């Protein structure tokens, strides 16, 4: 079914905003989708807080997909968000039923991408890296995020973080990565090589 122009236009603006790292787009999408997601979650044993959390995670998945270029615009954004939130919530319910520890379902949903990176199962080292990132100071933290998460080029990062040029960024990135690995090793008790 063809998407009505109004929605296309509105969605298109929001997608453009996400592509240009405008987080306000997520807030707007949150507002627009709050009611149906709250209805979905509360009808399925969840609370309003659960609904809010699930919707936020769905927003993160959307952001991730759009920023990585893996988002395919086939239906209205609200349809994607609803399906993603539903998926997250039912996974969470299933986990609870199996009495498994709660994890970041959004990451699991994001991991449905077919890329080698995101096919990864959660493991101790990934969590250690995440925690090490919390300890890593700036500009390393921003630099690594821009490069590995936002997929920015060295040139873009140089401009954004005020480095002289792409080569400087490259050199700095190498140092930052080493610092991160060092932190991860200390967290894992030096067992990681």
């Amino acid at each position, binding site marked *: 079914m063809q998407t009505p122009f109004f929605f296309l236009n509105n969605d298109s603006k929001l997608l453009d905003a996400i592509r240009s790292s405008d987080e306000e787009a997520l807030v707007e999408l949150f507002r627009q989708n709050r009611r149906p997601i709250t209805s979905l979650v509360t009808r399925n044993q969840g609370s309003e807080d659960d609904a809010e959390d699930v919707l936020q995670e769905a927003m993160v998945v959307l952001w991730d997909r759009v920023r990585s270029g893996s988002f395919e615009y086939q239906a209205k954004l609200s349809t994607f968000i609803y399906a993603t939130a539903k998926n997250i919530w039912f996974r969470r319910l299933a986990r609870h039923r199996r009495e498994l520890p709660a994890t970041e379902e959004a990451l699991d949903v994001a991991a449905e991408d077919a890329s080698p990176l995101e096919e990864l199962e959660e493991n101790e*080292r990934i969590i250690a*890296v995440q925690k090490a990132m919390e300890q890593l100071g700036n500009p390393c933290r921003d630099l690594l995020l821009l490069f590995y998460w936002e997929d920015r080029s060295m040139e873009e990062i140089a401009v954004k973080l005020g480095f002289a040029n792409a080569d400087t960024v490259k050199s700095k990135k190498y140092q930052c990565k080493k610092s991160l*690995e060092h932190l991860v090793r200390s967290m894992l008790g030096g067992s990681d090589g």
Partner: protein
Amino acid sequence: MGDRQLIHWTKSVENIEPYLMHRLDDVKDQEFTEHLQMCEECRLRVQQEQELIAGIRRFGRVELKRRLNQRIQSEQGRHFEWTQVASIAAAIVLMFAAVFMIRWFTDFEHDRTRNREIVFKDNEVSQRSLWITGKVILQPRTFRGTLSDRTSSFVIKQGDATQTISIKYAQLAELPPTKRIGDELIIPTFLEQTSKGLQLTLYTNAPEQSLATGIEAVSAESLIVYIKGQQIAYNIPGGWAGKM
């Protein structure tokens, strides 16, 4: 095939990153994948790099969610404040309305000479008379005019026209029964043309002595009568200056 196995691109992280981040062209991507199938050491290196990048991305997602949550909470806070302000404003308005209504009806019960509205129809009494409409305006004013016997006379001007209006008080009991409107308590007012000019008859259950009175023209078709500190504005269809 043998050459590809010997490439060992994976020895340098510079080679692994483009593979993991989908920055290799299809041919090189395939070569890399094939090489991994044969090189266990390479697979281990790739896995370590994968985990590192996955951890960084996970941190990015968690941070984004945290920022998003902060913005939403802050917006909800603002929304909550506005809602509160609106609620308080609504409560104040309701409170004032309630006080007004209570005063209104209390006064009404207490002093039946005040009535919200007086509605009469044209020429119900005679051809030369006119029942008019009036409305109490709750605003104290200085009284004017004199009270003698049961009639007060006023000469009022509106433009070039001059009109003498006298106000006559009559007890409510004297009001012809036909002028009661149902069970509603009213201040009946009757305006008629007499040889002495317009005469406005107020039917009231208050003692005449308590009725300090004034009268003034507001426009060609309206006038205000002051009774006991209250104003009653009258609209006179056809005008107060004559032609009744």
